[in-house]
C-alpha cells in the first residue's frame, strides 16, 4: 500500500469549496436584492451542498459501502416526516 496523498480526495480543494460557499452564503443573505423566498431557497440549497461535501468527503460516505450509508440515511425521512406533518398543522 504505497498510496500517497493524491490517492485520497483532495481535502484542501474541498476546504476551498466550503470556504467559497460560506462566503457566498453570507453575501447572499445580506447583499442580494431578491425576494425573501428565493433567498431562503438558495441559502438552503447552499447549506445542503456544504453539508453534503462534509458528509461525502470528510466523513468518507462517498467511499463507503451502501450498508453504512443506509445507517445515516434512515433518520432523514423520519425527521422530514415529523417536521412536515407538524407544519401542515398551520396550513389548515
Amino acid at each position: 500500500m504505497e498510496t500517497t496523498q493524491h490517492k485520497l480526495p483532495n481535502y484542501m480543494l474541498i476546504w476551498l469549496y466550503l470556504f467559497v460557499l460560506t462566503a457566498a452564503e453570507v453575501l447572499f443573505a445580506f447583499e442580494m436584492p431578491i425576494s425573501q423566498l428565493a433567498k431562503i431557497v438558495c441559502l438552503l440549497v447552499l447549506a445542503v451542498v456544504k453539508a453534503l461535501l462534509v458528509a461525502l468527503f470528510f466523513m468518507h460516505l462517498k467511499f463507503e459501502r451502501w450498508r453504512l450509508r443506509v445507517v445515516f440515511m434512515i433518520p432523514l425521512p423520519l425527521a422530514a416526516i415529523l417536521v412536515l406533518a407538524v407544519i401542515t398543522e398551520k396550513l389548515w
Partner: protein
Amino acid sequence: MTSVAATTRVPHAHHDDRSFLRKYIFSTDHKIIGIQFLFVSLFFLLLGGVLAMQMRWQLGFPGKPMPGGGLLPESMAAGGVILPEYYVQLVSMHGTFMVFFAIMPLLVGVYANFLIPLKIGAHDMAFPRINMASFWAAFAAGLLMFASLFVPEGGIRSGWTNYAPLSARPDLSGVTIGQLLWCVSIVVLGLSSVMGSVNYITTIINHRAPGMTWFRMPLSVWALFITAILAVLALPVLQGAAILLLFDQTIGTHFFDPAAGGQALLWQHLFWFFGHPEVYILILPAMGMVSDIVANGSRKPIFGYHSMVFAIIAIAFLGWLVWGHHMFMSGMNPTLGSSFMVSTLVIAVPSAVKVFNWMGTMWRGNLRFHVPMLNATAFVAMFVIGGLSGIYMAATPVDMFIHDTYFIVAHLHYVLFGGSLFALFAAIPYWFPKMFGRMMSERWGKVHFWLTFVFYNLTFFPMHILGNAGHMRRIYDPTQYDFLKPYQPMNEFISIAAFLLFATQLIFFVNFWYSLFKGEKAPQNPWEDNGLEWSLPSPAPHGNWERVPTVYRGPYEFSSPEVSDRDYLPQHEKRPTDREPASTTAPSH
C-alpha cells in the same frame, strides 16, 4: 481462520479471577449487566404495582381512609384519605415507572443484554464498558425518578405523558422539583438507552458466530435488533422534548407556552413521535421471545419464519407514521387525522401475520405446557384483545367518544400487561436457569399463572365497559359525576380484583427469591431447546464460550425428520450432511 480472531479476544474465558466489585457491581459482562437490570427493574415493577393499589383503593372506595394511609403525610393523604393532588401524582408516576423503569428495562435492558451475545454466539457486547455505563445511567435515572416521590410536592402530576402547558407551569400543576427531576431523569434514561442500543445494533451486525446468517437468527434477536433501532432513533426525540420542557420551567424559554407564542401541541407531537415507537419498543421484544418459547413449547419450527421477520420490520416502520392517533381530539388538523387513522389501521396487518403464525406454530404441534409456554400462550390470547381494542380507537369517529376514557386504560393494560408482562412471566423462568443455574418452581409457577390470568382479566376487562359508559381516565373520584354513580359497584369490583392480582404477584416474588437460592439445580438444556445459549453450562460462564460454536441451521428445528431419538436439533450440532459455513469474516483485503 475465523474463530481464531474471535477466540483470542477473550483470552481468559473460564479463569474468572475478578474481584467481587468487578464481578457483580462494575461488571462489563453482558450477563451480569442483564441481571443487574433484572433486579432493578423488578423493584420498579413492584413499586408501580404498589402505586396502582393506592389508585385502586381510591377509585373503588372514594373518600374512605386507605388501610395504612395513615402512614402517609397529611399532604398526600389527609387522615388516610388520598387527596386529589396525590392521586394525580399516583397515576402519573405509575405510568412513568411502569413504562420507563419496569417494562422497557425488563425487556430491553435485561433480555437484549443477556440474550444477544448468547444467542448469536459472541463473547460479549461490542462495547462492554459502554454497556456498563448504560446500566449505571439507567440506575441513576431510576434513582432520580424515585427521589422525586420524596421531594416536597412529590412527583409529576400531569400524567406519564406530561402534556404541556400543565407540565411546564409549576403555578398551574403545583409541582416544581418533581417535574424537574422527571425531565432530568428522562434525559439520563435516554442516554442509557442510546448507549445500550448502539451496542446491541453493533453487536448483532458484527459479532455473529460463523454460520449465524441473518435468517438463522432467532426471532428474539431479530426483535431486539429492530427494537434497538427504534430506541436509538426515538429516545433522542424524547430527550430533546424533555430538555425543552426543562428549559421552559427553569430558564424562562417559551416553547410550549402559548401566552408567549409557543405551541401547546408541539409537546404532544414530539412526545408521541417518540411515544408510539416506544410502545412498540415495549412489545416487539416480547413478541420475539414469545416466538422462541412458542416454538419450543410446540416442538415445531416457527410457522413462516421469514414473514415473522418482515412483520417485525413492518410494525417498526409503520410505528413511525401513526403518532397522531393519540391526538385525534387535540385540535390537530383533521385531514392529518385521516392519514394517521389509515396508517394506524394498517398496523393490524403485520400484527395479524404474527398472531396467525403463532397459531400456525401450535397447530399440529406436541404442546408442552411448561410455565413459560403457558404464559406465552396467554400472551397471544391477551395481546389479541389489546390489539383489537386498538382498532376502535384508530377509527377516529369512535375515538371521539372513547378517547381519554377507561377504554384506553383497558387497551393499554391489555397490551402492556397482557402482552409485555405475560411475555416476561414467560421469559423470566425460561432463561432463569441460564442466568442463575437454578430452576424456578414449576408448580408455583403454574399457580401464579392461573391466578394471574384470572384476576388480570377480572381487573382489566370490565374497564372496557366503564369506557363505553364514558368514564374518563385520570379522575380522582368518579362519583362526582351522576352518570358514573351507577358504575361504582363495577369500580369496586375492579379494585378487589386488582388487590387479588397484586397479592398473586407475591407468589412470583417468593418463587423468584426462593429459587434464586434454593431452586433445583438446572441442567444445561432444561427445555430441550436449539439456541446457542443452551450449549453452555448453567449458569453461563464469564466470557461465554472458550471457542465460539459454528452454526449449521436455524433456531427452530424441532421434530426434524433428520433426528429420530429426540425432537430437537441444536443450531450448533454438526450433522453428517452439514457443510462448514463460508467464513463470515469479511476479508480485510
